[in-house]
């Protein structure tokens, strides 16, 4: 779960990391008032959960309160990296002498926390990393002992930072690590971590991603941050998000209901492979297998759907429970599209009997045959590409 910049900066500040003075504005008048309070040059930053905001035009400088008002007026309601801007962070602009890079993340390879640092921070850090991997120091941390002062100092040993700045950066790295642990973060990233002309170390940006699995033990963080709505989110996608399901509308005509991310992706791959076009991505994996009724309602609410493909492979998810949900939704909605089933694994016999008895449909033995039949039904005029049953 990704936090907005200002939400992340609040956590950084509480963790003892210095951030620029500033406030959040939801209107041009608020932005002007904040700029007046701060005095001098300010930066106005669109709060959207996406990277490269600066390159997308979502971050601009203002020299006066009236300029801040004008910029805010232009940015509010605009779309930056797919998200509609509804809030802006107005901050005192910092006199930057050097841009550094710092991050702490869960690393799948070392199977533990990894601390990253570079004295060549800024928007082009990924290019820097690709060009000269040595420009980024990496330290794998034992989560039981934590990130110690000596490790932080060793990371900075080869930099040309002054002694006082180096000490402050080392302390900042440790604060970032402690915050990462304290809030159960997947990622805490500060880019740039600026050294100002007067030698201050300042977090100019913040990318913090929290572990959704750990939110249950952080009541102080729950509620404050929910998943963000993107500007191009469709009404159906919004309903799905509110129901706690991941649903993405695609531009095809075959409605897809499958269980588990791997099987769902494979089902879409197979539709593409045989020349069809899926109408959605919808995952009902894990415990969500009991939500088949509401999932099917969402899939069928898309008016472009001309055939339905149901592909269940039960392991933990019981196909009989999922199929009962599908049958219930089907009888309730009485949709006017043909449905094609491939059902295997845990609960297969019961599930297949349900479909035969209640829907009068015979499930296919092979996923590929069900996929081809669904494509044929959605495109009656271009039939003949698939095999007959």
């Amino acid at each position: 779960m990704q936090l907005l910049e200002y939400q992340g900066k609040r956590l950084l500040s509480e963790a003892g990391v210095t951030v620029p003075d500033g406030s959040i504005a939801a209107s041009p008048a608020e932005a002007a008032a904040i700029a007046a309070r701060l005095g001098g040059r300010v930066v106005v930053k669109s709060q959207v959960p996406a990277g490269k905001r600066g390159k997308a035009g979502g971050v601009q400088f203002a020299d006066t309160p009236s300029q801040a008002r004008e910029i805010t007026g232009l940015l509010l309601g605009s779309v930056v990296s797919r998200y509609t801007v509804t809030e802006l962070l107005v901050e005192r602009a910092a006199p930057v002498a050097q841009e550094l890079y710092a991050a702490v993340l869960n690393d799948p390879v070392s199977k533990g926390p990894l601390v990253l640092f570079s004295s060549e921070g800024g928007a082009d850090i990924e290019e820097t990393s690709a060009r000269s991997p040595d420009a980024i120091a990496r330290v794998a941390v034992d989560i039981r002992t934590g990130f110690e002062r000596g490790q932080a100092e060793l990371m900075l040993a080869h930099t040309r930072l002054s002694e006082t700045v180096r000490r402050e950066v080392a302390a900042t790295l440790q604060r970032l690590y402690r915050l990462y642990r304290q809030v159960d973060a997947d990622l805490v990233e500060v880019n740039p971590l600026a050294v100002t002309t007067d030698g201050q170390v300042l977090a100019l940006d913040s990318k913090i991603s929290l572990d959704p699995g750990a939110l249950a033990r952080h009541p102080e963080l729950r509620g404050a941050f929910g998943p963000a709505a993107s500007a191009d989110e469709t009404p159906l996608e919004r309903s799905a998000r509110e129901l706690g399901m991941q649903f993405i509308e695609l531009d095809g005509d075959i409605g897809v209901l499958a269980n588990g991310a791997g099987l769902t992706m494979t089902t879409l791959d197979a539709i593409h492979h045989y020349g069809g076009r899926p109408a959605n991505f919808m995952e009902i994996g894990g415990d969500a297998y009991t939500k088949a009724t509401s999932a099917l309602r969402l899939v069928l609410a898309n008016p472009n759907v001309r055939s339905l493909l149901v592909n269940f492979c039960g392991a933990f998810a019981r196909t009989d429970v999922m199929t009962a949900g599908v049958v219930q939704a089907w009888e309730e909605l009485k949709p006017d599209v043909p449905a094609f089933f491939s059902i295997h694994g845990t609960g297969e016999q019961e599930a297949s009997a349900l479909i035969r008895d209640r829907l009068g449909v015979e499930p296919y033995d092979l996923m590929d045959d069900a996929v081809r039949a669904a494509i044929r039904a959605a495109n009656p005029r271009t039939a003949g590409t698939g095999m007959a049953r």
Partner: protein
Amino acid sequence: MLISSQDTVIVQGITGRQGSFWTRRMTEYGTRVIAGTSPGRGGQEVDGIPVYDSVGEAVREHAVDVSVLFVPPLAAKAAALDAVESGVRKVVFLTEHVPCHDVIEVLAEARDAGTQVLGPNTAGIVVPGQATAGIMPASASNVFRPGSIGVVSRSGSLGTLVALNLVGAGLGQSAFLGIGGDPILGTTTLDAIQTLDADPRTDAIVLVGEIGGTMEEEAAPYISGMRKPVVAFVAGRSAPAGRRMGHAGAIVARGRGDGESKVQALTAAGATVVDLPSEIPAALGAGGR
């Protein structure tokens, strides 16, 4: 890790709805479930299997080879550490949504203790005709039957489809290893492939990968030195490019992780990469590489 019909198994969380349901299925398959745990329920029985408050108590009465975890996410760390500290050498960590920092801590302790961990968020192991530890449809005769193909899969549902395609083509499995869907896993793709490469009953390996992460790429150098054929399928190649936020993930992945990067790495390593699971049996028949 693998499991045999000789191995003794403890089920942690045996009194829960899922724990008791799957314990019955494992036992019916022939797995030697000799004990279970459930805090506060020590002294009870589930289907004649004795229940203890902890693994620490159970190991005073039983020799335990394998633990299977059906414990809720926030209690999973303590349960897994209980198994590790009690000297259990193999832990099948089924629980989904375990906080990542908890997983990291469990894996650090397990590494020091010499305990192998499969998962978390795994569907478990099936050794057809021998035993199963997990939540796979092991007893479905159209999905699993004894044979010589070793299968490695992140996903349980997709793994089921692949196993089904093998049996449909007249083949069988030496083992199915579900390694799990979480970003940080005790047993990686590479670990699982090495296990199957060393397994005398496995003649060929089917690798079921997915877009995201770099586990398939990390396994490629080892695959290039293998004599056993490897057939791979990578799910999600038709998916639109994902959206992300920070740079750190990209810095660590160094341009790897998408479908094409995986296909390229695996093909260069000598694996046969197929477009769909239904093409796996033919690729195996052609010698696999």
